[in-house]
């Protein structure tokens, strides 16, 4: 029995099954529609009563709170939403929802896409600028990071006759991929000789840079199967010379903190750093809630924090203080560099990714699913996620990047060199989208 069969059996047993009511599924369509309409009518009557009661209670609560707050002369202790945020970088410096997406536009003209490919004309043309291959390169074992129009890094896992993957080489460029420099190999000892380093998953950030010199690299390994048991977080490396020399600052980061937590954990959706010293690694743990590892000394020591949202992607920051953490059902914001999080905001009924320009302006792609191919809409918030409104239809599900409240890009697929690649641009805040890049890749 292979891994997928075992997973299938486990899930089917865990979910279970109960037959529907007698006759369900055999009635003709009109009967089913009639039952649905009848139920909806009853619910609408109930909803009207409940809404009235809820409104009365809400008014009473609000009035009580207002009177209480005045009486105590108290000001709110938690800054729910700060004033205008300090936008120092149009792209989150290290991590973020599109750090590993199909494409990451860093200005109206220049950007990168997985491959890596590079564009200087807003995505009309893409040029493949990949570094050279290395011996025994592992399939899928590659992670990329794009800092600005010129600086990018590609880390590749490779093996030897004895192991599928046992070392990592980092390539760096400071001239948009025209030339690449290669680091010395970083030796890894996976638990099994068939283990791989990094999965072929575009949603995880394994490498990121705060600036052109200072970066971090997280190495995780485990079995190649998607049903594999826990993955090991092997080591965290840092560089201060742009990626030529790397030093190991932590082996098995967070192990002692997790041991105290007393639950097995597996590497989650990667890592992010808000400054050169403060960073996070998202883990999925057997106990609930999951753990979020945080370091405030550049990665040497890690402690466990309880996540403010379920299944978060690692937080990403607009400056050293203001950041957003996107979870599976909600978002959280911070104004103090991640010391405290306010997680009261909810996302719209999301099917696809969300992105934030700053702490107030965000967008999500929503599949309203009357037709999965056509009913994709952009939802936007301009108040930090308190309210979301449907903006416009969107042509494809993919990764969103907004440079300001007007200009944005949407990329879908596996990169410019693949058949399912598509790339769109908006200049009106997402109301209309124009496909670009039809000239293809070189």
């Amino acid at each position, binding site marked *: 029995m292979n891994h997928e069969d075992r997973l299938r059996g486990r899930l089917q047993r865990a979910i*279970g*099954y109960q037959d529907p009511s007698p006759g369900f599924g055999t009635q003709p*369509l009109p009967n089913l*529609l009639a039952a649905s309409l009848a139920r909806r009518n009853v619910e609408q009557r109930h909803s009207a009563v409940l809404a009235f009661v809820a409104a009365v209670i809400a008014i009473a609560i609000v009035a009580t709170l207002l009177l209480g707050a005045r009486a105590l002369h108290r000001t709110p202790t938690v800054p729910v939403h700060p004033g205008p945020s300090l936008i120092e970088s149009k792209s989150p410096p290290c991590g973020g929802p599109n750090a590993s997406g199909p494409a990451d536009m860093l200005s109206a003209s220049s950007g990168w896409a997985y491959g890596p490919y590079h564009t200087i004309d807003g995505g009309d043309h893409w040029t493949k600028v990949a570094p050279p291959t290395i011996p025994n390169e592992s399939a899928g074992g590659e992670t990329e990071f794009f800092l600005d129009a010129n600086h990018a890094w590609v880390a590749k896992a490779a093996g030897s006759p004895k192991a599928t993957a046992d070392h990592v080489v980092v390539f760096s460029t400071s001239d948009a991929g025209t030339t690449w420099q290669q680091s010395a190999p970083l030796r890894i000892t996976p638990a099994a000789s068939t283990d791989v380093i990094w999965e072929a998953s575009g949603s995880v950030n394994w490498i990121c840079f705060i600036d052109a010199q200072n970066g971090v690299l997280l190495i995780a390994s485990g079995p190649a199967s998607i049903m594999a048991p*826990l993955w090991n977080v092997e080591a965290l490396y840092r560089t201060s010379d742009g990626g030529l020399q790397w030093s190991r600052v932590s082996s098995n980061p967070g*192990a002692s903190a997790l041991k105290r937590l007393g639950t097995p954990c597996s590497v989650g959706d990667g890592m992010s750093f808000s400054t050169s010293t403060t960073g996070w690694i998202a883990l999925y743990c057997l106990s609930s809630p999951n753990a979020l590892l945080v370091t405030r000394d550049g990665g040497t020591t890690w402690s466990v924090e309880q996540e403010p949202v379920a299944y978060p992607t690692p937080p990403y920051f607009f400056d050293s203080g203001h950041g957003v953490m996107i979870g599976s059902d909600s978002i959280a914001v911070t104004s103090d560099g991640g010391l405290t999080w306010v997680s009261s905001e909810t996302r719209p009924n999301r099917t696809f990714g969300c992105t934030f320009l700053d702490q107030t302006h965000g967008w999500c792609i929503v*599949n309203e699913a009357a037709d999965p191919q056509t009913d994709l809409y952009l939802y936007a918030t301009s108040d930090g996620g308190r309210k979301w409104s449907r903006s416009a239809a969107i042509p494809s599900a993919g990764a969103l990047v907004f440079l300001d409240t007007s200009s944005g890009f949407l990329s879908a697929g596996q990169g410019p060199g693949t058949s399912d690649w598509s790339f769109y641009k908006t200049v009106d805040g997402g109301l209309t989208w124009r496909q670009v890049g039809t000239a293809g890749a070189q």
Partner: protein
Amino acid sequence: MVLPSSISQSSEDVATSPDAAELHALLPPLFLPAYRLAFGMLRSREEAEDAVQEAALSAWRHRAKFRPGADPRPWFFAIVANQCRTFRRNRWSRLLRLADPVSRSAPSADLEADLDLRRALNRLGHDDRLALVLRYYMDLPFDEVAASMGVSEPAARSRTQRAVRRLRPHLDPREELIP
């Protein structure tokens, strides 16, 4: 054939609408597999039946968007999945939910592990759970998973992989990260 009054009074009358007639033939065979999908998402017979009924109504109202000749399964599954999402977000629906009938019939040998995995599934977001249910509970190939989720096949694989990764600590408790 007797239609509900509000439907039979519709301007798009079933007797004269070719797409409606097509739906009459295509949808009913999908009710049972759609129920299984809804049950996998909601784990409640009542809610699963309600979700399929609501999805049928939604499909009827959006029937103009159905492309004649296309496979109705992913189209209808996507609508069912959307209904499930609405149901899961509806607090009243959850509060009114009765005793869990499935937990009583779960095998006792691995009951604890199953309950743990079930809790983990409940904590997953809608998209992760949908990917897992379509792929491993419905046993669909990735091209159908992709069509039902409205994404490309590589994206469906990637989403499923992400969801499995999130479940990993619950899949094999004997394997531990901590040495």
